[in-house]
């Protein structure tokens, strides 16, 4: 416990360093509105990628419906805060969106997670499209295809940063818990896990629901940063964008998801100068990276402070050391 405390403190310090680094950049006037948008986008993409990675990378279920859950969060925030712009309403909308998303994920997940492989992908794709079509057609509540404008701006880069750190903490702690190891077992070999007495359905559904709730959180943050929501922002392409980040970083690596969100965010920023060639270059980059590095940037590698410290201090009581030597 004491040992873990040390590493947790180091992680906390690292988060603080990044936070104050950004803080200094903002106060020093190095950040324009444009780069601010990029930074916030990267933060939101990190939350999305980490949560989708929980579903795809750690529990091994291909889900193509992340945008649908994001849309629920975005619309929950938009609808609740446009009339009463208080922080209470904002907090309520975060929680409310997450609860609705979690509930829908549960309803969808329990029956569909019995399906193998690509069928789940198609079912989740269907669900997210159904959510989007319902949003387009419920005019009184959602203002239909024209979306909602003038949402008060609650989330800025600081709010996004804090939630990003919380999301990363939540996912990486979950993966290292007993439940998380069971989830990994299901990913590796479902039949073997079941034979060992792991309740496979339970862990798959848990990962799916958790991922959906985090997606909804990211959606709420995005909507209250952009101050507007449009149903077409949450279509199939959005799910694919998040999937690309996850696969680009390496399926099953939280570090990879974070790095990929950053790299793709900056790539997007520099590609703005290319105008209409931007998407062509982006598409080519995806194809080339997938052909030459199909396992993604980092594979399943994880950045670990514990490992680095152990390496330098060369402690004898390290578990891995005894295995390697």
């Amino acid at each position: 416990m004491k040992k873990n405390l040390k590493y947790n403190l180091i992680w906390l310090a690292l988060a603080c360093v990044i936070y104050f680094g950004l803080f200094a950049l903002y106060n020093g006037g190095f950040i324009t509105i444009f780069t601010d948008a990029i930074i916030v986008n990267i933060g939101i993409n990190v939350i999305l990628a980490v949560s989708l990675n929980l579903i795809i990378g750690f529990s091994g279920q291909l889900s193509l419906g992340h945008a649908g859950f994001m849309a629920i969060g975005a619309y929950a925030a938009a609808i609740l805060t446009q009339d009463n712009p208080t922080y209470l309403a904002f907090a309520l909308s975060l929680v409310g969106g997450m609860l609705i998303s979690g509930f829908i994920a549960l309803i969808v997940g329990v029956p569909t997670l019995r399906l193998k492989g690509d069928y789940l992908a198609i079912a989740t794709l269907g669900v997210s499209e159904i959510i989007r079509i319902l949003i387009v057609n419920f005019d009184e509540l959602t203002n239909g295809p024209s979306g909602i404008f003038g949402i008060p701006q609650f989330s800025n880069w600081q709010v996004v940063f804090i939630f990003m750190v919380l999301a990363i903490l939540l996912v990486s702690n979950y993966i290292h818990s007993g439940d998380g190891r069971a989830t990994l077992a299901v990913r590796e070999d479902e039949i073997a896990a079941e034979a060992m007495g792991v309740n496979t359905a339970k862990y798959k559904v848990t990962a799916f629901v958790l991922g959906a709730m985090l997606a909804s959180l990211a959606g709420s943050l995005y909507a209250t940063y952009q101050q507007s929501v449009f149903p077409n922002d949450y279509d199939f392409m959005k799910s694919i964008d998040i999937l690309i980040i996850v696969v680009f970083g390496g399926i099953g690596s939280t570090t990879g998801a974070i790095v990929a969100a950053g790299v793709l965010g900056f790539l997007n920023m520099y590609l703005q100068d290319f105008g209409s060639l931007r998407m062509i270059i982006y598409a080519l980059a995806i194809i080339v990276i997938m052909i030459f590095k199909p396992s993604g940037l980092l594979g399943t590698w994880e950045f670990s402070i514990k490992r680095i410290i152990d390496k330098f201090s060369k402690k004898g009581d390290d578990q891995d050391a005894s295995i390697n030597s």
Partner: protein
Amino acid sequence: MELMIQQLVNGLFLGSIYALMALGYTMVYGIINLINFAHGEIYMIGSFIGYFLIQSFNTWQVLPNAWGFFAALAISMVVSAFLGVVIEFLAYRPLRKSTRISSLITAIGVSYLLQNVMIYFFSPDSRPYPQSIARKTYSLGVIDISNIQLLILVVSVTLMILLQVIIKKTKMGKAMRAVSVDNDAAQLMGINVNRTISFTFALGSALAAAGGMLIGLYYNSIDPMMGVAPGLKSFVAAVLGGIGIIPGAALGGFVIGLIETMATVFGFSDYKDALVYLVLIIILLVRPAGILGKNIKEKV
């Protein structure tokens, strides 16, 4: 009632286009387990090739009539088949041994690439399709059928029958069936797996191009993003019928077409896409392998 019969007939025509595309999806999935997201883009490019061909036929005054359309259809199918083979060779073949999800991402990348190349060179605007076959409407008692609808049905059913003949009767078809059952065993039996997969892509792409040209003629407008929605829906059709099963894809296509038009009859036209996905989810829950699919127990 009349409206309902009319819409049933319309659904049949629309469904035959979905069926044409679903065949391509199902063949590729059956043979290399890849959801070929670029299939909808082949459909779009097929209709663009047809568009430019018919336009040039008209300007040079060669074949400025129905024969021009058929000539363009044939050329577009051949060129798209070639394009399908090239895409398979450059993008999918290097990934044959890696995980399915990275092939999936590559397919999505190819689909983005094709869309954006077309947008870059030919603008994102939709353009009117040259009507080289004049639309005539025949009234058959309670329903109206146009000659274009008949053409769609005849061309697509002919192509489907042709495909079935190729798969059941030719040596290549036999090889395709063998590879889809067991890739390695087929290779041991002396089947050239790479050539068989290329052939599958060629067939599927040719069918998609035909579908794209027919839809251009039917709706009279094409644009670089036209492949996205039909691409998804025809994939849904393939899953609905039982992915990997050729008659299932055709059936799924017709079912989707009918659901869409029936939704319009009952006043749910805004919800027709949602309805398609809802039916898909229900089918997946009741019969996970699709309507015609067989449930195979996973071996330990």
